[in-house]
């Protein structure tokens, strides 16, 4: 029994069919409608792409140890950084939290049996595989060298690489994103359990709602942009080719109209995870719940208005530049509000330093740097100097790796017991979190300095005087790489040798903790009825803290 009664009575979870053991055939996995199984399949696939993208990153940093283009020929280097960007952005960062943690947890958090459209969810996974397979195939054939930004006219007219094949893969993959977002929006509207009002929803859910809006509205634009790019390559149309009257800047506008909101697709779910981690590991309701919820929506909306800040030196008019710079400053404010609210949540909390909390605290520091350097880049006079330099590279790695990847890892560690029923080694978890934090800073902080010194990005060879900083960066990258590989080992180890987690190892109020670990296929034995506010850690939310304390005492006495 996994019901409230069982928890109250202090009974251990009886072995029962959970979503992992409910069917052992390949068919039962590949044709599943269970959102949890789909999430696990995403986890495996996304990790593969992260690994390959990471190998490319390693190649980049190794090449940049020396000023000359000696390890990799410049043609190869161009392909390496392009493919690093494409795999990381489209096949890792964008799906990671929504497709894995979102898929797994959203129905649990709202008290539903599944998402509203399970077959669409499965279709979205198939589409992800199709797009990914096509891109991997293209990489094996020879890859692309246009930069992940595919700027015309290089990508339309000059590049001799597999632009169309990779473009097609990304085009297909976009629909995976759209369908996931669509599914989340519908589910959050219609599948909430009785009593689960909008303002009782965990902030993870709010974050995913905002993300889904961006996914659904923004992704079709990149789809059409890639389609036009492919047609231009094949048919030499002249939409982007100026010799026939086209406009390369039009490509940039179309491209960034999606790709800027895309960065919010990447960071908003991460912020949702952090809200969960900070609140739960301080055992205190998040400070300013409504403000965080609304700022997620505000970021999603305003995120569509600032794409021109990627084009300040492209030749767009000064007045357009002024407008985009102003709006960029505006969009920074909701993120600042979140950081302040997270910090305030810690005040007078009861803070424990489990591995997920280490990631959350690391996130606050790293996202702060990343976000503030975004202000540097939104300030027009300054950004002219910093555009297309390593300052940009450092900025976006701080927000995407220091922000999103840290949040992703924090989330994986936090919900690992729920997804697998096992606890991992806290010791190795903490070590790895700290290695990642140190390695990350050592890798990317020198790049701010390199950027201000003028080192342009996408350079295989650079002036000698910049070598020392590059060496620091590569040294950091090795530490970071090692730190990122460690979870594979100890999380994998925990699957076999880990201690059983129990339903609610930390006695937390979220609905996902009110069912077995791992949950049964239908999520809840009995559909919950919510009568408590979000983030209530006491007995009034139905948590049996006394029982938990008794069990702990018995366990300690027994050892």
């Amino acid at each position: 029994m996994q019901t409230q009664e069982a928890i109250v009575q202090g009974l251990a979870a009886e072995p029962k069919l959970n979503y992992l053991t409910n069917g052992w055939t390949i068919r039962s996995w590949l044709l599943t409608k269970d959102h949890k199984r789909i999430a696990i399949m995403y986890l495996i696939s996304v990790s593969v792409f992260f690994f390959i993208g990471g190998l490319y990153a390693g190649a980049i940093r190794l090449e940049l140890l020396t000023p000359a283009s000696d390890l990799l020929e410049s043609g190869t280097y161009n392909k390496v950084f392009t493919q690093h960007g494409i795999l990381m952005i489209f096949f890792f960062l964008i799906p990671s939290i929504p497709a894995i943690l979102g898929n797994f947890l959203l129905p649990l958090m709202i008290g539903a049996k599944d998402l509203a459209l399970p077959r669409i969810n499965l279709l979205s996974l198939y589409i992800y595989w199709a797009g990914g397979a096509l891109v991997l195939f293209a990489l094996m054939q020879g890859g692309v060298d246009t930069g992940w930004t595919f700027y015309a006219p290089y990508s339309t007219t000059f590049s001799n690489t597999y632009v169309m094949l990779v473009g097609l893969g990304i085009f297909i993959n976009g629909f995976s994103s759209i369908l996931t977002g669509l599914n989340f929006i519908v589910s959050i509207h219609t599948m909430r359990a009785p009593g689960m009002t909008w303002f009782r929803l965990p902030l993870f859910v709010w974050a995913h709602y905002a993300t889904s809006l961006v996914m659904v509205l923004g992704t079709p634009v990149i789809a059409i942009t890639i389609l036009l790019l492919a047609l231009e390559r094949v048919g030499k149309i002249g939409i982007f080719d100026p010799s026939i009257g086209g406009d390369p800047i039009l490509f940039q506008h179309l491209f960034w109209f999606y790709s800027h909101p895309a960065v919010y697709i990447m960071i908003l779910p991460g912020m949702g995870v952090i809200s969960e981690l900070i609140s739960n590991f301080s055992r205190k309701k998040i400070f300013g719940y409504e403000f965080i919820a609304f700022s997620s929506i505000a970021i999603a909306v305003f995120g569509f208005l600032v794409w021109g800040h990627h084009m300040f030196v492209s030749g767009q008019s000064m007045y357009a530049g002024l407008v985009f710079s102003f709006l960029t400053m505006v969009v920074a404010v909701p993120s600042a509000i979140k950081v302040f609210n997270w910090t305030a949540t810690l005040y007078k909390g009861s803070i424990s330093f489990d591995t997920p909390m280490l990631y959350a605290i690391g996130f606050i520091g790293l996202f702060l740097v990343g976000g503030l350097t975004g202000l540097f880049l939104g300030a027009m006079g300054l950004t002219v100097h910093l555009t297309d330099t390593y300052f940009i590279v450092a900025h976006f790695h701080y927000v995407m790796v220091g922000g999103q990847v840290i949040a992703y890892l924090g989330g994986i560690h936090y919900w690992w017991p729920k997804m697998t029923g096992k606890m991992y080694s806290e010791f190795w978890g903490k070590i790895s979190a700290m290695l990642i934090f140190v390695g990350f800073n050592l890798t990317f902080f020198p790049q701010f300095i390199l950027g201000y010194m003028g080192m342009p990005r996408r350079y295989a060879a650079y002036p000698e005087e910049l070598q020392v900083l590059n060496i620091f960066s590569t040294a950091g990258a090795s530490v970071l790489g090692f730190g990122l590989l460690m979870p594979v080992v100890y999380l994998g180890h925990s699957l076999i040798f880990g201690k059983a987690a129990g339903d609610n190892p930390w006695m937390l109020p979220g609905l996902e903790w009110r069912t077995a670990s791992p949950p049964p296929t239908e999520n809840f034995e009995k559909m919950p009825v919510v009568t408590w506010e979000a983030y209530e850690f006491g007995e009034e939310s139905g948590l049996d803290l006394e029982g938990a304390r008794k069990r702990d005492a018995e366990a300690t006495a027994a050892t």
Partner: protein
Amino acid sequence: MSTHSDTHEHHNTPGLQHQFEDMKQQEDSVSIGMWMFLVQEIMFFGGLFTVYLVFRSQYPMAFAAGSNHLDAFLGGLNTLVLIVSSLTMALTVYYAQKGNRNMQVILIVLTMIFGAAFLGVKAIEYTDKYNHGLVPVTGLNKKIKEEKTAGHSVGHSSEHEKPCYEVDHNAPVVEHPNPKGEFLWTDCSLAKLGLDTNTLTVAEKNGYFSNDKIDANKFRDKVRIFFWIYFVMTGLHALHMIIGLGLMAWLGWKAFRNTYSSEYYMPVEMSGLYWHFVDIVWIFLFPLLYLLGRHFLH
């Protein structure tokens, strides 16, 4: 509800999927889902509309010239066909709600006939473009060897010397040599007339002229952009239409099997939404592509 009685309830309610508690939840979900899907489609076509608007505002004369070579009568006919098909679709939903199987099937078949008619007219239009060298991809136009043409042949078709023919709109169509099946803009009457430079946009001032004279090849390139946008937009629209026909076929089959009633008619309504959306996209495409800048009198 435990799992067991849950299944029992589900078997009593036709069409209710396992993840939903009741039909209302299912209906709300598919409705929101379909609307979100259509919003996404609007963003998709929106990108194309943006590209069209950017280029029309830059090269209005070339785009007007292109518009003139689209058959507004056929386009208008297609508009009428689609509007009527939307009517039959709406009536289908009405009769599905009433549970009237025969009327549903008849109206779905009628909708499909109109949809097919639309595609047929599109095929006629595309063939016409093929015959007249207006497909913007070399090799996809009708190849006409040089000997077959009567008079009017000027020079040979090399990249730099493609000729620009006078077209008399009252005279029968003359076939021009096109051995490689290239895009062959044939009407240079606008170019020959000498454009009033005061009415040209900045882009046009650079884009149509070489050495201060009208360059037929450059003008042709801009018209070619128009035809690219025409084919991509109407082609994507036609693709959605084909998908719509497939949807109708499936719907017709289910309706024939008496699946829909006042208790369960959402799939019909959702299919209707999709069909209306495809219709509305055409309502925007038609005036923008066929009618703007058109000269009805030559």
